[in-house]
């Protein structure tokens, strides 16, 4: 895990260093291409694994539960912050 952090920090350093080189503007596009490729591999891993494939609906329900938790938690926090810090300043 540490190695991943280190690689990213090195990346930030390189990014600051190459700011004057315009070619690096497209780094977002490179990231997308790598991500598409890795997602394809993730799909392939699911597709070749019969056990995973048959449990897709279970995984979907678990995903839905986790999403509900994430949404309820963050919306409640946003509601509190809005009430106490934002709403009273509105005209």
């Amino acid at each position, binding site marked *: *895990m540490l*190695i*991943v*952090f280190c*690689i*990213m920090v*090195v*990346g*930030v*350093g*390189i*990014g600051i*260093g*190459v*700011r004057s080189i315009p070619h*690096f503007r497209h*780094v977002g596009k490179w*990231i997308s291409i*790598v*991500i*598409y490729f*890795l*997602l*394809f*591999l*993730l*799909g*392939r*891993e*699911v*597709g*070749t*694994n019969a056990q*995973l*494939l048959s449990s*897709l609906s279970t*995984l979907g329900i*678990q*995903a*839905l*539960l*986790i*999403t*509900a*938790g*994430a*949404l*309820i*938690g*963050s*919306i*409640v*926090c*946003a*509601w509190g*912050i*809005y009430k106490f*810090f*934002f*709403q009273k300043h509105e005209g």
Partner: protein
Amino acid sequence: MKGSLIIVGFFVLGVLSGVGDVFPSDFFSANASQYVLYVLMLLVGLSIGYDKELIHSLRQTNWKILLVPIGTIIGTLLGTAVVGVFIAEWSITESMAVGSGFGYYSLSSIFITKYKGAALGTIALMSNIMREIFALLAAPLLVRWFGRLAPIAAAGATSMDTCLPIISQYSGRRYVVIAISHGIIVDLTVPFLVTFFCSF
């Protein structure tokens, strides 16, 4: 929305190629994808360092605006931790790792696949796409029931790109700056929090 379709498209293509046995099983080894992940991390870091505006806009952010992403992060982690207690198959931290995607499904599902396997990776992909779709569809209701910050919090990391138009429409244009800095800050925490919760 087009972005999510492309993402799902690549995933589905991968599933079909796996089911149809299109490629030989040694087509791309797990070892090689480890290095692709390292390249990805380096590129993500590079894009953070390269972006002058990003660091500049973070400096302009005042403390009140900062509360919004902090609320989203804490709320999401608490919510997913509670759900994690009730899902027998996954631990609390695994559930929190999925939540730490904050709608940034592509990157988070890749990380989670690498460290926790394809099952949790698939959950991360589905869960974070659901989050984005919910934020897009429910924005008007969220504003009415929970105030103008609710769609921003629901959108998570996508509040600065995919969900920005809808936030601007329903929360109002005065909330666009908040939505953008919220998106940037939440987005920045994704790789750190996901890898952190995967390390348990």
